[in-house]
C-alpha cells in the first residue's frame, strides 16, 4: 500500500507539472486593463497540486498516513483480476460503440457479464441482452430523441425510424 501511495503521489506530481506547463501557454501574469492572464488560474492551482503531491510523497515515505503504514496489498490477485475484467469489459464495450454501435455493444457486454462473469443461465442472459437494448432505444431515441452511436449498423435503423416517424 505504501509503494502505491508514493507512486500515485509521484504520478500525480508529474501530471501537475504537465498542467502547469500546459497552462503557461496562455499568460499567467497580470495584463494591464484585463486583469490576470487566462493561464493564471489553472497555473497556480496546478502549482498547488504539485505542492500537495510533494506533501503526499513525503508523508508516504515517513509513514505518516494510514495507507503508508498499512501492510495490506494495494491489489491482491483476486481484486486485480476482477478489476481487469470489469475495466477491460467496459473499455471493449465503449470501443465497440464505434464499430457495431450501442445496440450491438450493449447485448455483447451483457452476454459477457451475465453469462461469463455472473454464470447466469442462457435464458436470463438472453432476456436481458434482448430487452435492455430495446428499452434503451425506445427511451433515448424515441422518447428523448437523442441518437446513440450506431457504427456500421446505422443503415439497419432506417426502417425502424421510418416506422416511428
Amino acid at each position, binding site marked *: 500500500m505504501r509503494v*502505491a*501511495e508514493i507512486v*500515485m503521489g509521484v504520478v500525480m506530481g508529474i501530471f501537475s507539472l504537465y*498542467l502547469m506547463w*500546459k*497552462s503557461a*501557454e*496562455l499568460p499567467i501574469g*497580470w495584463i494591464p486593463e*484585463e*486583469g*490576470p492572464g*487566462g493561464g493564471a*488560474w*489553472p497555473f497556480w*492551482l*496546478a502549482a*498547488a*497540486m504539485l505542492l*500537495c*503531491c510533494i506533501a*503526499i510523497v513525503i*508523508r508516504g515515505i515517513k509513514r505518516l*498516513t*494510514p*495507507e503508508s503504514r498499512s501492510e495490506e496489498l*494495494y*491489489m491482491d490477485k*483476486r*481484486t486485480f483480476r*476482477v*478489476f481487469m475484467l*470489469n*475495466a477491460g469489459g*467496459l*473499455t471493449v*464495450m*465503449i470501443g465497440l*460503440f464505434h464499430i457495431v454501435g*450501442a445496440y450491438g455493444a*450493449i447485448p455483447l*457486454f*451483457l452476454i459477457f*457479464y*451475465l453469462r461469463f*462473469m*455472473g*454464470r*447466469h443461465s442462457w435464458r436470463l442472459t438472453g432476456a*436481458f441482452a434482448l430487452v*435492455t437494448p430495446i428499452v*434503451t432505444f425506445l*427511451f*433515448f431515441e424515441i*422518447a*428523448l430523441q*437523442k*441518437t*446513440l*452511436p450506431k457504427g456500421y449498423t446505422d443503415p439497419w435503423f432506417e426502417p425502424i425510424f421510418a416506422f416511428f416517424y
Partner: protein
Amino acid sequence: METLALLLNGFAIAFQPLNLALIIGGCAIGLFIGAMPGLGSVNGVAILLPMTFLVPPTGAIIFLGAIYYGAMYGGAISSIMLGIPGASTAVATTFDGRPMALQGKADKALVAAATASFVGGSVGVVLFTLFAPPLAEIALTFGAPEIFALMLMAFATFVGLGGDDIPKTLFSICIGLVFGAVGLDIISGEPRLIFGGIPGFFHGINFLVLAIGIYGIAEMLWTIEISKGEVMISQATVNFRRIMDTLRELLGTWRMMMMGSFLGYFVGILPAAGATPGSLMAYGVAKTASNNPETYGKGNINGVVAPESANNAASTGAMLPMLTLGIPGSPTTAILLGGMVIWGLEPGPLVFTDHPDFVWGFIASLYVANTFSLLINIAFIPAFIWVLKMPFTILAPIIFILCIVGGFVPTLDMHDVWLMLIFGIVGYLMRKLDYPMAPAVLAIVLGPLAEPALRQSLLISSGSFLIFFTRPFAAVIMALAFILLILPLVKIAFEKYKNPTQAG
C-alpha cells in the same frame, strides 16, 4: 405571508399531473437506488441527471429532488436488512438497526427509520421554507468578492470539517478546479488546456463526465471489490397491526427525532459536513443523553430514529446554500447545481426573483416527496428485499450501461464517454488510497463560477487581494474560511499538547 402565498403557488405546480408523476417515480427510483448497498443519492442523481432532458427544468429538479429524498429513505433499508449501509449517510443506522433485525424486529426498525426520516425531512423542509427567502435576499447584495469568498469557504469546509487527509483533500479540490478551467478562457476566448489538441476538450469537461465517472463507474468498481462475500438478508413481516404498534412506540422517541432533525439540518447546511457527520453526531448525542447508553448498539430504537431523522434533515439543509447562494452543501446538491446550469438557470439568489415557479415548485415538491417516500417505503418493503436479493452480477452491468449512455447523451460525443471511463478507473485507483473524491466534483461545478468572480474582483481592485478583506460580508466570510483552513492544524497542535508521546 408572502412566503405562504409563494409556497401555495409552489404546491399548485408540484401537483400538476406531470410533476406529481415525477415525484412518485423519483421517490420510488430513489428508494431502490438508496437501498442498494454502496449506492446512495449522489449516485442516483449523477447517473439519472441526463434522463431529465425530456421535461422542463422545474420537472427535472423536482424529479431529482425526489430521487434525493427517496435515496435518503432507502439507505436505511440495506443497513437494517443486510447490515451494509446503502450509503455512508446510513452508517449510523446500522449500529442499532442491524441488531434489531437480528432480534426479529426488522419491521419495527424499518418503520422507525421511515417515520424518523419523514419527521427529519418535514422539519428540514419547514426550516428551509423559513430561511431560504431572507438568505436569498441578503445574497442578492453580494458582488464578485463576496461570491468568491463564499466559494473559498465551501472549499475550506472540506479541509476543516471533511476529516480526510489534508494534502489529498486540497489536491482533490485543485484538480477539480483545473478540470473546470478546461476549454475556452471566458475572458480572452482563447483555447486553454486542450490536451493533445483533441477537439473534444474545446467544449470543456462537463461536470457530469467527472460525476458519473466517480459516482457511477469508480463507485461500482469499489462496490464490486468490497462485496466479496455473501450477505445475509433478514426476514421482515410487515402488516398493518405491527406498523400501528410501532408507530405508538415511536411516540416516545419524539425528543430524539426532534434533536436529530435540528442537528442534522444545521450540520447539513455546511458544505463538506452533510448528512454523514450529521447522522453520526445525532447518534452520539442520543447515546450520550440516554439514561441507559449501554443499550445502544444492541437494538435500541432511539439509535435508529436519531440518525435517520438527522440524515434526512441534513439532505434538506444542504439544499439551502445551493438555492440561495449557489454553493452546494453536499456532493448531491453539487450535481443538482450543475444540472441547473445545464437547464439554463443561473444558480444563486437570482433564481428566487427570476424563476419563482422553479424555486417554489421545487420547495413544495419536497413536502410532497417526503410524504410519498414514507408511503412508498412502507408499502414496498417486500419489493426492496427482492431487489436486495438480486445478484450484483445483474445489477452491475445494468448500472454500467446506464453510466455509459448517460455520459454520452448530454453532449452526444464519444470523447466524453472515454473521458468518463478514465475518470472512473483513475478515481477508483485513487479512492483505494483514500483520496476524497467529493471535493473534486464540487470544485468542477464551482470552478467556472469561482474563476470569473476572482478575476472580476481583482480587476475592480487593480490586482489587490485586499478587496476580500475590506468589504464587510467578504471579510467575515474570508475570516470563517481562514478559521476552517487552520482548524486541522489547531486540532493537531491540541492533540500534541494533550498526548506529547503519541502525536507526530
